[in-house]
């Protein structure tokens, strides 16, 4: 694909890296010569210095024959104008990111507004992150929850508890309920897709995939079940306020700690059931004074990664049950975990996921990176004539590192066994390691009818 990326901030650069490594032709545009020089030096892509919303610059970047434009500058309006202009010039699809507080209710079931203003997808990664945090808060002890196929299928990351019933035995002997499976295991920072003979150990991070109800009922066999009745949120920005709003009315007591008095007062007006505290969330005395230590969960969702890390560490000292932070560098996830942070959520990763799905073509409906990009969770529709279609799965000889988690049939979701067959048009949800990605794509490539 020929892809134009406008804006080389953290998301832009991450997108350029991912697209380049997947073999796309990329032209990167930015106004900042330093950002251009960095990308020039590190990636095999073409660059252009200039204002990304200008028709002249976009034309020079090849937008009339481009397949996709990705607009991710730090100015929302620039992104929208760039996407619209490129569409007008003839670019086939356009994806634009927005992140300001005024772009919170852009609609779309999963925080991605399709077709807003004629742009194929407008999304706000901070809203995506807030929704992810809300899902984690509502789950009973998961560290990460992905909703796939409009919530029909869930993939939850949990940490194997010491003495968990599912630990210490080969997976085949676990007799897991139909309707779920162990999709991937992360041990010592490395992700693998397990086979029947593999054994789970305490401390592993396990991705469970399947029907939400089944996963919830099986959760106690893997992880310590935690009920969440009190949540503290550090930072009342877009992420914090969206999260608080999502939790209002669910019976959870939410406290937001916000440093800026006007922001805090504005929050108090729109969040009637939430306690708003003005103060520095990294101040242990403040946390103790307001009894934050009794919270089951603290999410540090300020704009600054360092503040979040510090806040989470202080909160642990204050006695908070579990901590989660919003980070901008997902590649350091294992580093944060070593420091004792339970949950790491990266809006940047979510933005990259949304963009990469659009670079993957029509048949990929959604896509999530697992464990900092070591594997991906893909939802795609099985095309007519593909090798994986029309025969029992056990005859398929799946490559190592690929696992089919669920099949969306017309009459419902099936977590397939060896005898099940994928029909043309079915949705397929699978996990594949980065190494097996090509092999997996080949299985589901449309054949000649």
């Amino acid at each position: 694909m020929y892809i134009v990326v406008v804006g080389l901030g953290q998301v832009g650069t991450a997108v350029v890296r991912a697209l380049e490594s997947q073999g796309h032709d990329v032209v990167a545009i930015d106004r900042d010569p330093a950002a251009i020089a960095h990308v020039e030096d590190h990636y095999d892509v073409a660059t252009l210095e200039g204002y990304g919303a200008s028709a002249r610059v976009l034309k020079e970047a090849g937008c009339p024959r481009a397949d996709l434009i990705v607009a991710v500058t730090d100015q929302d309006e620039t992104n929208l104008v760039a996407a619209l202009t490129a569409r007008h010039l003839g670019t086939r699809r356009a994806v634009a990111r927005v992140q300001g507080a005024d772009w919170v209710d852009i609609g779309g079931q999963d925080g991605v507004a399709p077709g807003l203003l004629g742009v194929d997808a407008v999304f706000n990664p901070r809203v995506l992150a807030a929704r992810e945090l809300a899902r984690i808060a509502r789950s009973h002890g998961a560290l990460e929850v992905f909703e796939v196929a409009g919530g029909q299928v869930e993939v939850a990351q949990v940490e194997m508890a010491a003495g968990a019933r599912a630990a210490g035995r080969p997976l085949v002997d676990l007799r897991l309920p139909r309707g779920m499976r162990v999709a991937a295991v992360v041990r010592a920072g490395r992700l693998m897709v397990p086979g029947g003979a593999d054994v789970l150990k305490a401390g592993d991070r396990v991705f469970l995939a399947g029907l939400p109800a089944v996963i919830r009922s099986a959760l106690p066999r893997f992880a310590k079940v935690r009920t969440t009745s009190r949540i503290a949120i550090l930072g009342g920005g877009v992420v914090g306020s969206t999260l608080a709003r999502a939790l209002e009315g669910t019976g959870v007591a939410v406290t937001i700690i916000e440093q800026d008095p006007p922001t805090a007062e504005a929050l108090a007006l729109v969040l009637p059931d939430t306690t708003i505290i003005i103060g520095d969330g990294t101040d242990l005395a403040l946390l103790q004074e307001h009894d934050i230590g009794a919270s089951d969960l603290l999410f540090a969702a300020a704009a600054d990664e360092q503040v979040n890390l510090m806040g989470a560490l202080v909160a642990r000292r204050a006695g908070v049950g579990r901590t989660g932070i919003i980070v901008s560098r997902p590649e350091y996830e294992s580093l944060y975990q070593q420091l004792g942070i339970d949950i790491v959520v990266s809006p940047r990763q979510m933005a990259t996921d949304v963009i990469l799905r659009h670079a993957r073509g029509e048949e990929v409906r959604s896509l999530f990176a697992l464990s900092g990009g070591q594997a991906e969770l893909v939802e795609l529709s099985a095309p007519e004539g593909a090798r994986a279609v029309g025969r029992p799965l056990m005859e398929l000889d799946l490559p190592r590192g690929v696992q089919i988690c669920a099949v969306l049939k017309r009459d419902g979701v099936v977590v397939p066994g060896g005898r099940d067959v994928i029909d043309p048009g079915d949705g397929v949800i699978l996990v594949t390691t980065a190494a097996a990605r090509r092999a997996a794509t080949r299985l589901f490539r449309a054949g000649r009818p």
Partner: protein
Amino acid sequence: MTLARRRRPPVHRVIARPVGLVLLVLAGALLATGFLEMGFALASLDDVDPLQSVAPLFGAAPISALMGAFAVWWGRDLAGAVSLDRRDASVAVVAIWTLLGVVGALPLIFGANTSIPDALFESLSGFTTTGATIYADIEGTLSPPLVLWRAVMHWLGGMGIVVLFVAIFPNLGVSGKHLFRSEVPGVTAEGLRPRITDTSLVLWKLYMGLTVVAVGLLWWLGMGVHDALVHGFGTLSTGGFSSRDASIAAFGSPAIEWTLAVLMLIAGVNFGLYYAVVRTGKVRALWRSAELRLYVGIIVAATGTLTWLLYDDHGGDLLVSLRYSFFRVATSLTSTGFGIDDHRAYPPVAMAIVVLMMLVGGCAGSTAGGMKISRVLILAKAAAAQVRRSVRPAVVAVVRVDKRPVQPSIVVDVMSFFVLYMACLAALSLIVVHTDGVPVPTAVGAVLSCLSNMGPAPFYLDVDNFSGWSASAKLVFCGAMVLGRLEFFTVLAIFLPEVWRR
């Protein structure tokens, strides 16, 4: 991505794989030339043993292959794990060009009893498309396989063997980009396609296509197939090795001379412009380039002046004078070095024009040598802007080429290039004057000829080639040719300690 806790391996291990792969490509080129030549020998029905005549090529191929395989093995575990940065790439490219010189020399040492400095000179003169030779008697000394090998060296070096490597090995990623830039540091040679592999492929396809056309034309005009190949390769690469002692004059065909002159000039144009024409289908794209307009302007002006200056020498025949002048302009401006007359007999003004054209060279992004027209353009405009600034400091003077402002960093880059060019010319000439005790103009002429990858020098010792120089002077010329081909920065960078220290 996992966070690996690892230090960067030393430079020689990082570059081992690309260097080794290029050596394998070179071994392939040796074999291909050998097989082609075997075909010629079999078809000619002469009494020569086909295997014996190509033995020097088949003898050199395994040496290159073994060295390459060893290098690939040496860097085996770093494949894909570590990508080359600019520093590694410059070391890699200089290493590649040094090894090209060595491997290219082997067939000449094996097959023509050439001494090592002579063979090294001839080989680098081939790969850098200089076309200067140390053979006084080409037809008597060199067998057809060796003549073809010299042309193949031209051809591989013309568009660049590293560019070829980047084109045929995909997935090099950013390493490929840095390698490409270290070999082709030109101002506008890249950016044809977003990916460097595609850019390299486009360039090589255009180059190959033009070569096929050239060889076909020469054959149609009456050259033998072997000669057509040798001169086709030598023309598109703007090299200049001929199969004949008398160069193009040996064919005595005005049609061939006109055709070769046009082909040389075609090779001296930025290949990116051809790509623009092929992609958009509009020939107008050519004329929009200020560099090309200046190129054509120089050709017209120089041809006109030379025709007038040489009018009497050619007995007052305008057409003959025009043909000789046009050929001289083409061969000098594109730094090819084919000859149909002896420029040493020119009147001094004509000689000065020839030397100036050698200095200027062809367009950036072409296979020609010299400073490149676009650099001259930027230098002239920057100097003019500076003159204007000296009297009216308040005026904002912007250097523009093709209606676009030229970044100050590029102006500085071009000026540094000019300084390095002149400094190298002076320093190397001084060394040669010292080693061989020749007059200064002779030394400067020979070094300029090597730096601009021209070939024939304006003032020779007593013979029409480089055989009269001492071995140490030849090694200096080797350095000059590589410096000029890689345009100074890449070569000089490897003498910086921070390239090696991590």
